[in-house]
């Protein structure tokens, strides 16, 4: 049988997969053509990851068929997936970062000569593979010395080394800077032109628009729809993902800002000792901080919250100067920080919802001799579960079993139970699904309305445009511009974020 151009490279037919107590995939279908970039999107829990694990040989389906070049195949191990030309690039990179690039590319498949590893061959072959992904580094470089974007390219080179025809990429840009992401897009487009097909999973719809030839949407473990090249737009994608019309995705109302809640004067952070930061936020105001990864936004929030001490400068809360050297000082001054990495910095994952919600308030609520105030903790938890609509079986549920969105709500609940004056949010919707995102936006609105001052860092342009009353834009450690609602546009932000600063507005 000759291969007709109509035969898809990869086809998933009627696949069902269940786990104890839950159906992860129910009769789903998916096709991937030759030289095609297919975006697979859906909320968390829609079944994307399960399908990817099935394709990569990590799990087997309960029923249904996988076809490659029109022929049914069984992919029951990672090796079998490799043999069929399918390779998965995990969200968290799977590199041994203490080894060099060449060793990583050929890990487990080292070419041998006289029973020893043939380093010369590794070096030679690695150079070819690295050239194919446009990465200009020596195969002898230790992986941990490479920036994260280049590490990802090493992983792609490894996939190519097993002659992968289908590359599955799970949230590949989640930890890349804008520039690194651009490079990645180029590589993906280049691979497509050379006959490699890509299944691209992402929450970032802007990327999907840029890269995808076609979009497949999953919802609750089922097919929710497919979009052809000319149908791919933001609203259609969101609508299919959440299953309802979302013309009101951002729920902005006009705010009436009050007094200045937080004022920062000549603040110098250890990460960027050459620049002084000056800005103010009023109560009832939502201020966005835009910029590229590495612009110093997270570092600024960390100094405000006392995680890192400031080099110099002053911070005023409600007009009173405060000294913030530790998070304890910041909390006492009425600040709260929802950090960038909720699993590492926001939550104690192995502990209960209740314990996590109560963690920051232990000291404030303590009884005599440091005894726990259990009734208070219980009441706070109950309030936060209902107010933030945290989906959890009960307050004793261990946080790691909750979805990303619900975990983020637990972090928010921890801080809101302290009723802070200023809420600092660092990438508040990173890695959470569309439904939970919208709930968090609603909550930000509600808190601003009640008079809280909110400062949020975001790498998602739509979030900045949709949510902020004012926008601070940072570039390489300094604030390159402050945009009011009227001045705010994608172009204005990008100009400032890339350091293209009009002469008169240098801060």
């Amino acid at each position: 049988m000759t291969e007709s151009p109509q035969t898809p490279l990869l086809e998933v037919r009627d696949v069902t997969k269940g786990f104890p107590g839950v159906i992860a995939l129910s009769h789903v279908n998916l096709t991937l053509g030759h030289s095609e970039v297919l975006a697979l999107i859906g909320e968390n829990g829609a079944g994307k990851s399960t399908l990817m694990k099935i394709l990569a040989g990590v799990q087997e389906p309960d029923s249904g068929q996988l076809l490659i070049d029109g022929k049914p195949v069984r992919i029951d191990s990672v090796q079998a997936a490799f043999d069929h030309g399918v390779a998965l690039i995990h969200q968290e990179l799977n590199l041994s970062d203490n080894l060099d690039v060449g060793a990583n590319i050929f890990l487990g498949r080292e070419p041998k000569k006289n029973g020893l590893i043939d380093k010369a061959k590794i070096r030679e072959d690695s150079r070819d593979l690295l050239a194919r992904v446009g990465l200009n580094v020596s195969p002898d470089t230790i992986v941990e010395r490479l920036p994260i974007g280049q590490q990802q390219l090493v992983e792609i080179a490894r996939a190519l080394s097993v002659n992968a025809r289908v590359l599955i990429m799970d949230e590949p840009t989640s930890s890349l800077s804008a520039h690194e992401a651009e490079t990645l897009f180029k590589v993906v487009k280049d691979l497509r032109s050379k006959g490699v097909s890509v299944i691209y999973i992402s929450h970032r719809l802007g990327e999907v628009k840029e890269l995808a030839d076609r979009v497949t949407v999953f919802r609750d473990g089922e097919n929710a729809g497919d979009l052809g090249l000319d149908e791919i737009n933001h609203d259609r994608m969101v609508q299919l993902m959440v299953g309802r019309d979302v013309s009101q995705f951002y729920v902005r109302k006009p705010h009436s800002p009050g007094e200045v809640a937080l004022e920062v004067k000549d603040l110098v952070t250890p990460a960027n000792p050459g620049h002084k930061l000056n800005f103010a936020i009023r109560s009832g105001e939502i201020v966005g901080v835009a910029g590229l990864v590495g612009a110093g936004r997270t570092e600024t929030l960390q100094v405000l919250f006392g995680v890192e001490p400031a080099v110099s400068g002053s911070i005023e809360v409600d007009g009173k100067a405060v000294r913030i050297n530790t998070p304890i000082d910041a909390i006492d001054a009425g600040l709260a920080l929802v950090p960038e990495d909720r699993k590492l910095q926001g939550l104690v994952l192995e502990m209960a919802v209740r314990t996590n919600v109560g963690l920051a308030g232990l000291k404030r609520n303590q009884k005599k001799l440091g005894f726990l105030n259990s009734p208070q903790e219980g009441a706070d938890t109950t309030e936060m579960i209902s107010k933030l609509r945290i989906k959890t079986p009960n307050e004793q549920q261990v946080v790691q079993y909750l979805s990303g969105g619900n975990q983020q709500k637990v972090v928010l609940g921890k801080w809101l139970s302290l009723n802070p004056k200023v809420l600092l949010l660092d990438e508040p919707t990173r890695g959470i699904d569309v439904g939970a995102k919208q709930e968090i936006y609603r909550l930000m609105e509600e808190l601003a309305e009640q008079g809280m001052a909110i400062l949020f860092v975001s790498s998602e342009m739509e979030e900045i445009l949709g949510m902020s009353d004012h926008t601070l834009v940072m570039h390489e450690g300094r604030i390159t511009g402050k945009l009011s609602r009227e001045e705010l546009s994608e172009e204005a932000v990008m100009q400032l974020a890339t350091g293209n600063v009009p002469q008169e507005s240098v801060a």
Partner: protein
Amino acid sequence: MKKNLGILGLFLVVFIATAFANPDFVNAYNLENLIRRASLYGIIGIGVSLVIITSGIDLSIGSMIGLVGTMLPYLLIEHGASLFTGLLAVVALSASIGLIHGLLITRLKLQPFVVTLCGLLIYRGCARWMTGDSVQGFKGNYDSLRYLAIGKIPLGTLPGIGEFNLPVPFLLMTGLAIVAAIFLNKTIYGRYLLALGRNEQAARYSGINTDRMVVLAYVLCSLVAGFGGILFALDSNSIQPDNFGSFYELYAIAAAVLGGCSLRGGQGSIFGVVIGAAILPLLRNSINLLGMPTTLEFAIIGVVILAGVIVDEVVKRMAAKRRAALAAKQASGS
């Protein structure tokens, strides 16, 4: 309490099996001895569990017991120090050692294993050098003080056991266990230790002074080890500086691990540790009474601990799976 059922079951199985196999096991004299040993191990186990909960370790406990145990009779008998001075000196020494451990670990970011391993060597060397390696003892003095370690409270005749006296260390251990359990479960400081043991960074971001809490854990651990050292010395009355307390850190750590403390931190139950500490002398006693070769003693103890830890891990995995399924059900159902 549920999480301690496994260790409690193991204890009861060994206990009942030995009682059936050898009637001598349940005689009052044997039980009194067993309870006294178990209580002393329990005390040092409670101390080290506080450190293990912070995801740390203290390997110096045995040598600390050696140092405190030789230093107290050395000061009292050889130097004629007053009882107050002697006790004050060893308590202050214990607290200082813990403070130094804690500061090296939090300020210089040294690994607890390395710091306390060096401590193990240093304190043993100090004990031998100070005393010229000669055996120390209380030489028939301080009987009222020794009551703390060897005293017994008559409880009258118990059915099947005979005239039974409760060893005083059991009361000391029980008191310490109650205080420690309240500290760990009912105060914000206990919660701080559990939280930072699991995720130091998240605890710090939540406004917890994690460094100070870690130092506190090491100070408490060393204080308790010093207290244990005093009791062990009062109990033995013949203290060899070169080996008194040797390996006791491992007994204490084994008790903590058997009792449900994870070496990864953030987890532990004082009741479990107390039972865990009792299993070690119980096993040793059983090996003797059942006529097994005493040369196998360590091997048997090792196998039993390993088996206990394996069963515990399997049970935990099953529980985690159940919880995950429950959460998935909840998420898909709503």
